[in-house]
């Protein structure tokens, strides 16, 4: 186990800077998730920590060692790849023991370590099989087994669940999380799936266009997103946005006036964006009129797509809704949970 420190890390390909000065301190034993849309640089950043990509400037430290110029094999890290990256011609046992074979471990020690990892990951019966004889979930467990036998200082996961079906993804998510709780090894996990990020992370780093948008615990990011990008990225269904103007009477958008969160009278006349999460819109006979466009019952909740103040929005209700498309319902936003963002910069205002 070791802390990982990224200080002003940059990466350029020619004139294009794809990582634009990232600073992150990962605490010893922490589960940190890098999340962001495709092409935001999260996988590149992970590969830079692994040593598979060079860095253009800045500093990466694992433990008390700066590893900028250190080859991957000397960084004492283990990585689990999206496509598992198992050796197709080796059995599960050899796949897991390969990294120990050329590090001076005795055969009995390798067998012992492989057995230990196989027990943890429920692979003991599969040790003689080849990767082609395994299911996706089993392959992913072998990939994790290969990582843990070495007892590395840091685990790196590069979208490890992307190739699994939805059901298996939920199972493997829990397995990875419980593995982390059991071993307590510092983990950096890359995903584009914000649900994965929310459920697994101690802290999340939201990245966009090679920059860090916000670092925080899952609920910090959910409850107080630093900007409109984070607000829109974290949460499913995504936060609703209403562009309009802050006035003394409230937030005016599309002919309706919404209550303002907090005392922001000094911003009177400022163009802004009102953000409200789908579950923070409640049915209220005195509320704002909204036209129902689509009703999607999920069982535990009902998702309703509607038009409010000229904008298409989504509301989620725990109660059963009898409204049909074309009908009008009345909604009240939970003002305490509303967010205001600057129209130009997208920065949080409240």
């Amino acid at each position, binding site marked *: 186990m070791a802390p990982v420190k990224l200080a002003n890390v940059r990466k350029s390909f020619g004139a294009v800077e794809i990582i634009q000065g990232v600073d992150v301190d990962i605490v010893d034993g922490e589960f940190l998730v890098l999340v962001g849309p495709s092409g935001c640089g999260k996988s590149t950043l992970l590969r830079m920590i*692994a040593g*598979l990509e060079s860095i253009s400037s800045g500093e990466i430290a694992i433990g008390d060692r700066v590893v900028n110029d250190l080859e*991957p*094999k000397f960084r004492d*890290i*283990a*990585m689990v*790849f*999206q*496509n598992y*990256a*198992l*050796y*197709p*011609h080796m059995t599960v046992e050899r796949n897991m023991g*390969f*990294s120990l074979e*050329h*590090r001076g471990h005795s055969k009995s020690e390798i067998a012992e370590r492989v057995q230990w990892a196989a027990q943890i990951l429920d692979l003991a019966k599969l040790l003689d099989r080849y990767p082609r004889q395994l299911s996706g979930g089993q392959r992913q467990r072998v990939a994790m087994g*290969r990582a843990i036998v*070495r007892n590395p200082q840091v685990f790196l996961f590069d979208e490890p669940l992307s190739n699994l079906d939805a059901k298996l993804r939920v199972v493997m998510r829990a397995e990875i999380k419980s593995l982390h709780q059991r071993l307590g090894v510092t983990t950096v996990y890359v995903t584009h799936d914000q649900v994965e990020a929310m459920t697994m992370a101690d802290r999340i780093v939201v990245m966009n266009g090679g920059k860090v948008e916000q670092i925080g615990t899952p609920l910090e990011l959910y409850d107080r997103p630093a900007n409109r990008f984070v607000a829109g990225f974290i949460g499913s269904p995504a936060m609703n946005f209403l562009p309009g103007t802050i006035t003394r009477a409230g937030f005016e958008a599309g002919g309706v006036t919404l209550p303002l969160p907090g005392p922001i009278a000094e911003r009177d006349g400022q163009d802004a964006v009102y953000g409200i999460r789908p579950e923070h819109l409640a049915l209220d006979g005195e509320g704002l009129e909204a036209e129902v466009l689509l009703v999607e019952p999920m069982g535990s909740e009902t998702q309703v797509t509607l038009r409010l103040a000229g904008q298409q929005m989504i509301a989620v209700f725990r109660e059963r809704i009898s409204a049909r498309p074309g009908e009008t319902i009345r909604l009240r936003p939970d003002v305490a949970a509303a967010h205001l963002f600057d129209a130009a910069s997208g920065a949080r205002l409240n």
Partner: protein
Amino acid sequence: MAAIAPDAIKRQSFRLVMWLFTLLTIVPFALLLLTSLKSKQDLFRGAFALPAYPHFENYVSAWVDGHFGTYFWNSIIVVVPVVTCSIVLGLLTGFAFAFLSFPFKRSIFVILTIGMMVPTEAFIIPLYYEMRYLGLLNSYAAMILPQIAMSLPFATLFMAATMQQLPKDVMEAALLDGASRGLILRRVIVPLLKPAISSLGLFLFIWTWNEFLIPLILVNDDAFRTMPLGMLFFQGRYTVNTPVLTAGAVLVIAPIIVVYLIFQRKFIEGLTAGASK
């Protein structure tokens, strides 16, 4: 009369053309094989007439009187080191071109490509003088060394291209597992490239086995002659005995067919590698 669907006509015509080409390829070989089993008298009864019984003595005659026994072993002595060395060197140079950065990489790559394009006729005279200077004329080395050099450009390009198609993250996983370059090549790349190595081996075997000009110019001692060259001199001596002559021709091509049949599966795997997941 029921109308025949245009699709069926198209399919049947395609089959007909395919069969025609197949026959065009097979018939000369079948005739060669048939003639090699005939007696001189059978020959006059027509090209397609079957002999009363197979005359295997033609093969014995070609093997013993035509010195094909010597030529065969000479070919083996030349082919085995050429194929082995070219594959080993091709793996090393291919690895370098596929994964390493070194000065003048592109220029060297272009030179290698040119090396594949230049015909043997263009450099055989300087090569002759070079071999004479080195005192290697009339030796196995005179045939082995130039053919390794001639095979290397193709082996390098072939290996580099196939290595580049290997899943990148498997290499990276090996790197993170702490494997050195040599170990990655030996323990990860070579086992994954077995079909490609088989294909390369087969190509090189065929080319080296059939090589004619180099042994013709650099070797004039009958004790060092290889199969194709032996065939030439055998033809000169046995023009009147067509069955023995064709038996000699069968002996020349038989090893290629046997090697192809052995490696057939791997060869096809190698040709289609990377076509689908």
